[in-house]
């Protein structure tokens, strides 16, 4: 297969150009975080410092917001995994009359924009006096990512052969033990993928906690970082950048982990496989 040399060079050229365009906004935040006198523009710091990071981490309210963020997203991820394993089991293994319509409704719900229901959700929280409750916010976040969790989990479970489970029943295991001791361990990569995606999704979610939580001592990192931006963001670029990097870190680390678990490529998050 003969390749046109010139065309290939042009293609490399375009890719390098696009790569630089994508890199520039990110480069600023990385350089500014280590710069004692960070400005809005990109510049290599004259001296590198970690002071921005120690300033951010030295503030106990920032640390608390990271803790709340981990609690909120971690709690949500655990509930999503447990509840969707339970739901996926009969959807994958049983014959049920409403299975098809249930799965279609689930798929439909995965696509709906959560933004659209936030006003009535806030009113519902107000009505039941749930506003400013971390647990209720966690449960709302859980339900908003549950459709995706169930859909993915069912597909993962379909790929676990039923023979192994049947063998365990022969040995006297109950359905419940079979699910816990045979099926779940076999689909650990799937479970990890769903947990990671759920965690990262709510870790990065600003709108939901911004609406549902009010008092400063209950706000997760996504909201405190916004407030920091609102009050100091236009002056203390270095600290804002350091705060942003610290806040972005969990998403990056979990993404790298998820790459290990995801089998090949990125086929619509497994959804196109039906």
């Amino acid at each position, binding site marked *: *297969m*003969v390749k*046109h040399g010139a065309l290939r060079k042009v*293609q490399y050229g*375009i*890719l390098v150009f696009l*790569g630089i365009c994508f890199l*520039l*906004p990110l480069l*600023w935040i990385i350089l*500014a975080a280590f710069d004692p006198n960070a400005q*809005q*523009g*990109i510049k290599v710091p004259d001296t590198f410092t970690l002071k921005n990071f120690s300033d951010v981490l030295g503030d106990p309210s920032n640390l608390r917001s990271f803790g709340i963020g981990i609690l909120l997203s971690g709690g949500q991820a655990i509930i999503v995994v447990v509840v969707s394993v*339970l*739901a996926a089991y*009969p959807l994958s*293994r*049983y014959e*049920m009359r409403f299975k*098809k319509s249930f799965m279609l409704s689930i798929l*439909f719900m995965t*696509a*709906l*924009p959560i*933004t*659209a*229901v936030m*006003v*009535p*959700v*806030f*009113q*519902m929280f107000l009505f039941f006096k749930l506003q400013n409750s971390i647990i209720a916010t966690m449960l709302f976040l*859980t*339900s*908003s990512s*549950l*459709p995706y969790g*169930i859909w993915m989990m069912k597909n993962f479970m379909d790929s676990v052969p039923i023979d192994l489970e049947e063998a365990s029943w022969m040995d006297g295991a109950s359905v419940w033990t079979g699910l816990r001791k045979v099926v779940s361990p076999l689909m650990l990569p799937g479970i990890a993928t769903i947990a990671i995606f759920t965690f*990262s999704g709510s870790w*990065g979610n*600003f*709108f939901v906690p911004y609406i549902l939580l009010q008092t400063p001592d209950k706000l997760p990192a*996504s909201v405190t970082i*916004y407030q920091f*931006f609102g009050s100091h*963001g236009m002056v203390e670029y270095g600290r*804002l*950048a350091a705060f*942003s990097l610290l*806040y*972005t870190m969990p*998403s*990056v680390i979990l993404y790298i982990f998820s790459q290990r678990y995801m089998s*090949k*490529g*990125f*086929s*619509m998050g497994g959804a196109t496989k039906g």
Partner: protein
Amino acid sequence: MKRKGPGAYWFLMPSVLLLLIFFIVPIILTIGFAFTNMALTGSAAQNLEFVGFQNFVNMFQDPDFRISVWRTLTFLIFSAVIGQVVLGFILALLMKEKNMTFRRIIGLIVIAGWVTPEIVVAFCMVAFFSDNGSLNQILGWFGANPVSWLFSFPMVSVIIANIWHGTAFSMMVYQSALDEIPKDIEEAAVIDSATNFQILRYITIPMVKGSIVTNMMLVTLQTLGVFTLIYTMTGGGPGTSTNTLPIFMYNQAFVNYQFGYGTAISLVLLFIGIIASLFYMRSMKVKV
């Protein structure tokens, strides 16, 4: 062996309960509240009344609402359909059959913008477009005068920000779709002396058409709900120049405390979402 039995419903119970309370009920409430005069302040706060289609009548007469629909469409078409879907495809196509290390580096840079949380994306972009920011800095090297991007071209700025954040998703979808095209088909076309454009037009694009359509619907739905990025970068302004439906809804409900009106706007958003979602499901041709 497929089993039957009432046990199945117990397994489904927790999910159904959670979805019912936090997903279905809010949607029903959206429909209900949209026909009331609900408000947190003023006389309407005390006596909640059914007002029929009044919110919708007000909405369609409200010039701000019409502007908002227009802004949402502009944002959707340029940042989702043209921006992410097309740029993602171009990236995936160009990266095909390139040096592995090179491919990986470019891929990582693009994906970094996607992994970064929306609010940090907004900070990066505020700095990038600011008066002394990187963009003006670079344009300055070519002798151009600095431009207040966020003030003079706010829509362009938020569109570029959303493209920067979202393109990686489309790129990854197309990459896996392109990888699945058997090599021999394109090779046969080369032997038959097809031009590169002909291969793209008659082989590559038709073979990944399914992925393109599904991805386009998914990206449209995601972009429809974008709030954080615009709220942080411009707050919907200056004036109403980036006031998309989610921002308009937020301002009516949480700034002006007109919950009935805010819910009516949510309902419009939800309605557009439902239509796009149905198209998305059709495009996937799922077998359950």
